[in-house]
């Protein structure tokens, strides 16, 4: 017999198109940057008989890495802007816990979704509080990669743009340290990326609210009663800050 969920669900439009586009550009960039970056760090051994003048694969790998870095940066900058221009789910306020409700949700997410010591479901609409904080750390990591990456790139570029980041090299004590940390941070991306995908699947698997497909179509499902609650809290006596739930 089919198992039927009796509580009605409502569709809400959470991720606007720019957010979705950002997400997928970012995804492609990170995959390409990590793959090419790894190769730059540990190039594969190529036993080739061709003359060096007929090959350029390592140069191409680096070129792809640098080009992708630009795309990544501008995409990232766009997202920062959208944190102020986008809807409530895209707002920067989701990423920095600044009220008690967010801290409480953060603790709840930890207990319910990560450690699974409690069972009742938690229905965040946009990012949950823990995800928000994680993405904020991710943004810091983005910024770190941009600064260290372009800082190293400055030495091999005549363009003015990378020179804006040249200050990081003396600050960190030389290219060696910069490269070491830039490389280390790649692993942070790989690990956080893997966990991210795992948890997206987890949420969909347990809650069945379309978390995975929401990044394609923008829609998520939520219990009708939660929506009503939310409308009440917004229409009712004015709250100081709109809760992201």
């Amino acid at each position, binding site marked *: 017999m089919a198992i039927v969920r009796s509580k009605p669900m409502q569709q809400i439009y959470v991720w606007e198109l720019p957010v979705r586009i950002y997400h997928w550009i970012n995804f492609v960039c990170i995959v390409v940057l990590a793959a090419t970056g790894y190769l730059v760090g540990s*190039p594969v051994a190529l036993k080739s008989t061709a003359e*060096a003048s007929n090959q350029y694969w390592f140069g191409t790998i680096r070129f792809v890495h640098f080009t992708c870095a630009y795309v990544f940066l501008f995409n990232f900058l766009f997202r920062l802007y959208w944190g102020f221009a986008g809807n409530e789910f895209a707002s920067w306020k989701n990423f920095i816990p600044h009220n008690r409700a967010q801290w409480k949700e953060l603790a709840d997410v930890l207990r319910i979704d990560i450690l699974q010591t409690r069972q009742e479901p938690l229905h965040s609409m946009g990012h949950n509080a823990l995800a928000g904080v994680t993405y904020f750390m991710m943004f810091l990591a983005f910024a770190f990669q941009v600064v260290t990456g372009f800082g190293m790139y400055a030495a091999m570029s005549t363009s003015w743009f990378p020179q804006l980041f040249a200050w990081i090299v003396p600050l960190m004590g*030389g290219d060696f340290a910069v490269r070491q940390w830039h490389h280390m941070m790649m692993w942070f991306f790989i690990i956080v990326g893997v966990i991210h995908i795992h948890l997206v699947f*987890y949420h969909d698997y347990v809650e069945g609210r379309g978390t995975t497909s929401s990044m394609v179509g923008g829609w998520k499902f939520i219990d009708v009663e939660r929506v009503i609650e939310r409308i009440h809290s917004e229409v009712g006596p004015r709250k100081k800050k709109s809760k992201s739930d």
Partner: protein
Amino acid sequence: MSSHTHRTLLEQMQEQGYSRRDFLKFCAWISAMIGVESTGVVSVVRALESKPRPPVVWFHFQECTCCSESFLRSSHPIVADIVLDRISLDYTETLQAAAGHQAEQALHDTMQKYRGEYIMTVEGSVPTKDGGVYCTIGGRTALDIVKEAAEGAKAIICWGSCASNGCIQAAKPNPTGATPIHKIIKDKPIINVPGCPPIGEVMAGVIVHVLAFDRLPQLDGLGRPKAFYSKRVHDSCYRRPFYDAGLFVETWDDENARKGYCLYKVGCRGPMTYNACGIMRWNCGVSYPIQSGHGCIGCSEAAFWDNGPFYRHLAAFPGFGIETTADNIGTAAGIATLGGMAAHAISTNIRKRKLIATTDGGVPKKGGDE
């Protein structure tokens, strides 16, 4: 020695038997070295023939004298002969004729008489631990001497990695607290000329620049003269085409090593090392490490000793032992993550079973009427 300082370089050269023609050739050569444009040669000539050379004091602290050696072997004889050997230095422990009290007296006199005018050059780092007892000269610690000498100096030139960034004696755990000059002296213009040793011509170029133009050469963010340190060894490396083609030496005795492929994968530090080795080369332009088949070890970069092992591309990660690279740690963290995820997935499935069995969305059903 200090009695010579009121004369110009030309006068001093002529005294040594050099002709004006020799002098002009030297000026043209050194101008090319320091990268002034051809019209600038005139100002170098003017300066060196008319301005009295400022006094130079040259200190030796925690060092091996390889900087002095390198300078002496600079390809132009006048550098060693005139600038360094005979006349130029008012005080230098290694080369001066005077010894003991006489030498200290000469230093003292120069510092008194030319206060605010003399150029202070330092070879070696300064130990700061335990009151600086690990390096003393004439009963005084290097720390004391540096502070006193720097006060009256017009500018400070730090020769070599020791004075510029600490070099080997500052390698972990740095038992003597070896410290580069720029971390001790904050209020004087400082030129860092790193390298272990720096190239002789680079040293000559820097000192002539200061003497001729009476001001510092253009410096980069780490206080290094841009003329010599703005490009990486990698940028002027003749093996660079192999790098771009992705052709690397894999082991020291493989076919690729014989073919002279790029040394990146066997630890070449050229891509992180700012120096002029690829252009000026060593021993009068004979060769440089990479040309001789050995990767660059990055001797002019800060903490190059701590970024080992030399024959590995990725450095050992601090705190994890010499064999551990960032990639080992990353892989371990990745495996731990996968383990955590597996545990999480199992617990999720147990939960989901309960969920499907009991609820519509996690709320236990009441009385079984659904």
